């Protein structure tokens, strides 16, 4: 299996050969930031295209197919449109907070994006509380959304932001607990370590029942966390026009839009890393030939493929289920997901203590 560490090592040595240590580190930081942002934008474009196609297929339509082959350039055209649009200055808004909010949202999602192990040796931030850091930075996004709603000085925006706050804080609990279940199982919070441990078998197989329940809960809570249907109350087009980003235009709106899609990718990426083995190929103990063949597929493709599957499931949710009411949403979290999650955590502890896993 190709190790991307070779490439990064080579770049590092190349820079250090003609630059002093600090300058080389600085250049590397800028390079990494650039790579992350480019990756961020490209993935967002792909996801917007995928969302349209998947949505269309669920509704028995074809979807975008005019711009470029199979409509692939559609989302690039949309991006250009968004970039050239005017950012309208609105009276009676809290100008500083209003302009700050989209950046808060995008910073949160870029930081969480940077934590993911994309491939073997392709991992930006990796330290012993990686998962903890990831949860922490991804929840900064709520602040941005609340700020956007508050600073807009618009009742729809404020209602949308408040709903979003209630929803995200509630479902953060489920996300945290289901991740905790897996942390109990793996015994570490370091993402690279978690991925390494899954060389023998993905956690969803090795942890069988509790891991599977945790996976289902994680995907449900993750869908809610990204404010996507059926949990898209904060936007609720029919009631609140567009929720917290009603007053935004141009690229400021574009930031919210990008962050929404990238959060979906981050949720899928974390689900992949924790439950489906990250970039680890599918290994079945005992089947040596099969494992060898699987090793030939590059790790980046494994990660992208697993993410695509999880994203497809999340989109499948969106285009199947009707939207929940706010009380139903909170019922689901506090009366169902949370108790199940706590029982599941206990079950996982029992499984780990008595070594009932594979």
């Amino acid at each position, binding site marked *: 299996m190709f190790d991307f560490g070779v490439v990064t090592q080579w770049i590092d040595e190349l820079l250090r050969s003609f630059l002093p240590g600090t300058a080389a580190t600085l250049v590397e930081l800028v390079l990494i930031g650039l790579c992350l942002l480019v990756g961020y934008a490209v993935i967002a474009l792909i996801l917007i295209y995928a969302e349209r196609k998947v949505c269309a297929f669920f509704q*028995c339509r074809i979807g975008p197919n005019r711009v470029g082959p199979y409509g692939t350039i559609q989302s690039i055209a949309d991006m250009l449109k968004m970039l050239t649009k005017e950012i309208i200055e609105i009276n009676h808004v809290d100008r500083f907070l209003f302009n700050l909010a989209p950046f808060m949202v995008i910073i949160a999602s870029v930081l969480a994006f940077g934590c993911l192990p994309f491939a073997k040796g392709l991992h930006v931030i990796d330290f012993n509380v990686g998962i903890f850091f990831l949860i922490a930075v991804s929840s900064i996004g709520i602040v941005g959304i609340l700020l956007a709603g508050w600073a807009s000085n618009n009742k729809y925006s404020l209602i949308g932001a408040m709903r979003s706050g209630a929803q995200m804080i509630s479902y953060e609990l489920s996300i945290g607990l289901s991740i905790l279940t897996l942390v109990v199982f793996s015994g570490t919070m370091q993402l690279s370590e978690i991925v390494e441990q899954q060389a023998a078998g993905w956690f969803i197989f090795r942890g069988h029942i509790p891991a599977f329940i945790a996976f289902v809960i994680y995907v449900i809570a993750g869908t809610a966390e990204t404010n996507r249907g059926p949990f898209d109350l904060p936007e609720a087009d029919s009631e609140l026009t567009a929720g917290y980003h009603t007053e935004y235009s141009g690229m400021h709106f574009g930031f919210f839009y990008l962050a929404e899609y990238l959060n979906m990718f981050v949720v899928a990426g974390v689900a992949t890393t924790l439950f489906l083995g990250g970039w680890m190929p599918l290994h079945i103990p005992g089947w040596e030939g099969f494992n060898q063949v699987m090793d030939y597929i590059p790790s980046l493709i494994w990660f992208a493929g697993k993410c695509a599957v999880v994203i497809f499931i999340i989109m*499948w949710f969106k285009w199947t289920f009707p939207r929940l009411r706010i009380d139903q949403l909170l019922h689901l979290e506090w009366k169902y997901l949370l108790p199940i999650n706590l029982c599941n955590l206990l079950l996982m502890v029992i499984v780990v203590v008595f070594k009932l896993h594979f």
Partner: protein
Amino acid sequence: MRSTKTYFSTFFSGLLSLLKGMRVTIREFFTKKTTEQYPENRATLKMFDRFRGELVMPHDENGNNKCIACGLCQANCPNGTIRITTDTITTEDGKKKKVLVKYEYDLGSCIFCQLCVKNCPRNAIEFRPTFEHAVFTRSKLIKQLN
């Protein structure tokens, strides 16, 4: 006790119905798409048989139609779309007979109610499922069917 029972039963029935919904949508995902990409599929696009596109009067290979010039279609048309010009001729055995001279049909004022076709005693006229009728002047919409 009962509330505990409903808690669990509603949970599982809800889960089941959600899965059922997902099964329906995934089936829809893989079915053939219904979108017609119109100008491109002009060669293969087929309208359904009962589509009322325009009124025609079918002629056989000798150029004869079945019209007996009774004027029922003209009388039944709510819009005055059909105008029939007739002539009276005397046949060999000395009987007088009405014959059709001109059958004019104005597509521009037709409401496609099909009353003319239904009232025709000889099934001399029918609707064709064609639909590309756009022209630049209204006079071109007035057609002579015989």
